[in-house]
């Protein structure tokens, strides 16, 4: 069996693919890579189908050994990728026994490292993703973990230049109002005039924001909302008015009003935003 061995995980390394759909009614979060375009690009570069499982590496520091000949690609924010001390561009080849180390990414949080054949850990409910909220999927990786690789199905794609992901100093995030915008005073005005920063309490469940407190309408101030279904990208506003944007490992239901939803195409950058990144919303009726 072809394998790779994780020698050092860095702050956090997880197996992620495109997540599990169809189980929300049972209370199962979608999970999956936060920056899906970076995951699918890494897969394409090594000749994998887009939904193959790869490593999602938080803040670099990963040290990996190839136990068999394989092709590797690293995508996401700009990061040093070193093989025997030599910088490599993706995709690149590793012979059996060769090791790759990732530095610390600049202007982003999460790199995706795909290996030809994909990571062939056992799927659970149709996905190999680690769900940190509910504990479904493989455990977070630990030093010394050996990961099996699947069969190589495609040919690596040759490229000259890869443009790294780069989170700007200030994110401007579109929001479609609803379902509970009516709970808030002039939601368009409040969202477009507020400003926030990304909190260090953010994680795969959601990006928590600190800044302007969103005010409820007088008649909703002491109202409680029966729990209702949540979508990825939902901007939930708890009682203190500080919004959070839900990401892939979000609970399937929640009891605070959702003022609006960030469209899917804007979520990958949110999953890359470092604590302290400034953020504004651009509400859309």
């Amino acid at each position: 069996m072809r394998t790779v061995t994780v020698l050092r995980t860095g702050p956090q390394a997880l197996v992620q693919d495109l997540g599990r759909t169809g189980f929300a009614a049972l209370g199962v979060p979608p999970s999956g890579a936060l920056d899906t375009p970076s995951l699918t690009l890494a897969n394409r570069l090594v000749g994998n189908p887009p939904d193959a499982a790869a490593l999602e590496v938080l803040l670099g520091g990963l040290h990996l050994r190839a136990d068999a000949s394989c092709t590797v690609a690293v995508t996401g924010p700009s990061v040093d990728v070193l093989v025997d001390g030599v910088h490599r561009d993706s995709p690149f080849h590793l012979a059996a026994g060769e090791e790759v180390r990732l530095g610390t990414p600049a202007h982003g949080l999460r790199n995706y490292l795909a290996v030809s054949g994909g990571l062939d850990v056992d799927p659970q409910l149709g996905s190999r993703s680690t769900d940190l909220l509910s504990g479904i999927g493989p455990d977070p990786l630990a030093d010394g973990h050996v990961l099996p690789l699947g069969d190589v199905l495609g040919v690596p794609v040759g490229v000259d230049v890869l443009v790294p992901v780069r989170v700007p100093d200030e994110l401007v995030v579109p929001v479609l109002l609803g379902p509970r915008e009516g709970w808030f005073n002039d939601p368009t005005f409040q969202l477009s005039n507020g400003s926030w920063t990304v909190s260090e309490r953010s994680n795969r469940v959601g990006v928590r924001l600190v800044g302007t407190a969103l005010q409820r309408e007088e008649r909703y101030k002491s109202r409680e909302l029966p729990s209702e279904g949540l979508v990825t990208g939902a901007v939930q506003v708890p009682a203190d008015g500080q919004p959070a944007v839900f990401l892939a490992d979000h609970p399937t239901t929640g009891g605070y009003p959702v003022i609006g939803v960030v469209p899917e195409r804007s979520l990958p950058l949110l999953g890359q935003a470092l604590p302290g990144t400034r953020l504004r919303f651009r509400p859309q009726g």
Partner: protein
Amino acid sequence: MRLRRCGDRAVLVEVGSLDEVEAVRAAVVGARLDEVVEVVPAARTVLVVTRDGGQARVRRVLEGVDLGRRSAGEAREVVVPVVYDGPDLALVADTAGIAVEEVVRLHSEAVYSVAFCGFAPGFGYLVGLPEALHQPRLDSPRTRVPAGSVGVAGEYTAAYPRATPGGWRLIGRTDAPLFDVHRDPAALLAPGDRVRFEVVR
């Protein structure tokens, strides 16, 4: 019925009661639309998530829903064995002003249905709880409720699929496999299922 937008690929259907939630859920699931990705019932809402461009067909199905229609009775029935020895059994009996044996009889003779799941994978909120057992949550929640605990809160009863914090009043425990990713289906209880509890002595 009110339809509330929830991003560009989902609609939140708001209705007035759990019966209406079940009518909407059953109609949307029953329509078997390829575009529908998730149908998530809750206490007063049903969230319907589709692929891109699938919202129009969902809205047509929703327009045809008869909210007064009870499900046609083809529900799956699940029997959950329970040892009634929970730490709050006496509290529940006291609050209801009845004997412990009566709590056990009431809870185990009722027929429940799974209104919705949430909180944790496989945690089903069951309705059909006899009135005397409608009771508030504990004043201070437990930091750890053991897996398999059976409890009551408000109009619901439920069994905890895994150890979590929780504030429900615990009346018993079950060793039924409530959630196991290695089984198919992984969750013992799904929305719409009928459930009975069987006394294990």
